């Protein structure tokens, strides 16, 4: 323990003198500012609808107009020309012109041009259903709500970024920091000096993982406290982040064990960090969930962090995530210890 404690003190001081703590604090500060002041609490992603009428309207058409009037975000315009003008200014707007054609109401839909076929068909179908409600058998449509109060949709937009911030800062920054620390020591040759002392290479490496863990936990506590407040499940959040940090560190360690300089490893470090952050896309677009993304350890990690901060009752994801990440970390740690030993002995 005396040796490990000595290594920890040394690594923490080296990390401090290399401004790792300062960088982490500045990054946390910027993320807190972004979450609290820059990102709005609400942002509508729904398209605005502008509608107008041409000529006399039948009762059927009036029904449709009544539906549009009651729709949130829909506004009446004076003319088709006005709609087109507004659409040019706001790319998130679509237009609807209702007119009589051969005694029947006709709907002209004005689109921006980038809408996909599915969206176009869905719009056409909904107008068809509004004009001819007798053709739709609503009795065969049943809503099944699995979780009445997940609360996920009630999370303000700015706060919903917090799990992403915790994923990027404490976890991914740890990945980069650890790789930097190891390559710095490889270049200085200090590990050779320590290898001719009674310490084991495993102890030498684990102390760096612990320092990164410390950084990750401090950063998580700061970001969470100053954005979503203190009302989170701290135990589960810190355990999740700890598992993520250990995974990030051991992965960086594994990559570092395969190369003798940072320049040689750089491409692999960048590619790996990019791949690991792909699940961030799935966070805001849950429908983007190809198998290749969902099997990535960071996919579960991201949702586990959200679950710890904004509980929805799916705490199993947290335990699965912690178990999975720790199992992978043990494998990566064992492999890198072996490879590290061999590569050092080769020099």
């Amino acid at each position, binding site marked *: 323990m005396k040796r490990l404690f*000595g290594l920890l003190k040394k690594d923490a001081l080296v990390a401090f003198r290399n401004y790792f703590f300062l960088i982490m604090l500045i990054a946390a500060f910027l993320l807190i500012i972004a979450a609290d002041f820059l990102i709005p609490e609400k942002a509508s992603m729904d398209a605005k609808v502008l509608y107008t009428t041409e000529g006399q309207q039948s009762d059927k058409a009036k029904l449709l107009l009544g539906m549009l009037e009651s729709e949130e975000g829909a506004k009446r315009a004076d003319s088709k020309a006005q709609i087109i003008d507004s659409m040019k200014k706001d790319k998130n707007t679509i237009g609807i012109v209702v007119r009589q054609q051969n005694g029947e109401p006709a709907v002209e839909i004005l689109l921006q041009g980038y809408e996909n076929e599915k969206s176009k068909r869905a719009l056409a179908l909904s107008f068809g259903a509004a004009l001819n409600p007798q053709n739709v058998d609503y009795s065969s449509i049943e809503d099944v709500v699995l979780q009445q109060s997940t609360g996920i949709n009630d999370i303000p937009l700015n706060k919903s970024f917090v799990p992403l911030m915790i994923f990027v800062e404490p976890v991914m920054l740890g990945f980069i920091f650890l790789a930097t620390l190891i390559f710095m020591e490889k270049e200085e040759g200090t590990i050779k*000096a320590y290898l001719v*002392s009674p310490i084991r290479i495993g102890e030498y490496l684990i102390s760096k993982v612990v320092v990164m863990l410390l950084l990750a936990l401090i950063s998580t506590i700061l970001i969470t406290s100053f954005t979503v407040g203190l009302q989170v499940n701290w135990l589960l959040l810190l355990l999740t982040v700890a598992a993520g940090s250990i995974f990030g560190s051991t992965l960086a360690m594994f990559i570092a064990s395969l190369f003798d300089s940072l320049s040689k490893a750089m491409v692999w470090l960048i590619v790996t960090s990019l791949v690991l952050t792909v699940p961030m896309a799935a966070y805001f677009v849950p429908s983007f969930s190809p198998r290749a993304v969902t099997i990535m350890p960071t996919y579960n990690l991201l949702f586990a962090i959200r679950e710890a901060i904004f509980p929805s009752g799916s705490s199993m994801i947290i335990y699965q995530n912690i178990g999975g990440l720790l199992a992978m970390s043990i494998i990566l740690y064992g492999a890198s210890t072996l490879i590290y030993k061999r590569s050092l002995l080769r020099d």
Partner: protein
Amino acid sequence: MTGGIEMIKVRDLYHSYNNNEQYAVKNVSFEIAKGEIFGFLGPSGAGKSTTQKILIGLLPLQKGNVTVDGADVRKSSRELFDSIGVSFERPNVYKKLTGVENLKFYSEMFGVPTEDPLKLLKMVGLEDAAHKKAGEYSKGMLQRLVFARSMINNPKIWFLDEPTSGLDPNTTSMIKSIIREKQKQGTTIFLTTHNMHIAEELCDRVAFITNGEISAIDSPRSLKLSFGERLVAVEYIEDGKSKKETLSMVDAGQKQRLNDLITRCKVETMHTQEATLEEIFIKITGKELK
């Protein structure tokens, strides 16, 4: 060998970096007794560092037998390093830590009583730079810091790799006196160098190594006696002119010539000359030390 307890014993050591028949070290055998300074001499790439790395566990033992402080290096535990000190030729310290921090953190790795870092820094003349970051040290200061670090655990066996390389004469002299002092205290010293003057001054015995093979092991004095030609340099006046000749003390004809000069001429100076260890090395190995 000078006799006594064997602290290092190497038998039939071979090592290949490519795991083939191209050996960086081949058929190397030697023993080092307690309190002995053993010089391992050879040019760059001769196999000195490879041998030392095997002894300190930085390279695996492929073939042969090596015992250090009575422990087989194949089976030895990490605790063996409590009694070993290694001074590397290339300074390898934390540049962001101060001199004293480098020694302090390193001292915490050992399970035996360690030296006071400041005392060691004072010994190598770094007391004024103790609290400066090592990144601000000159190459010579870094070399001394590494040398000081290798003494932190009061090693029984001390491996020194080119300990005076790049140091000025005063610092070299200081380092040599520390090495002698440690020897007096009973430390066994394995000195790897290509500097024959240092080896000649410090070593009880030396081994000459070239192309991975040892070609001679003996004390510097015995090597000189065995392989060196004793010469006499004579400056004399003959026919009013000052002349100089170097004559062998072994060759009968040249011995007679020396007698003639002493009786016939006015001898101004006469000095016996010994071959240097470097000359002996070249004579034995056919290679120069570079």
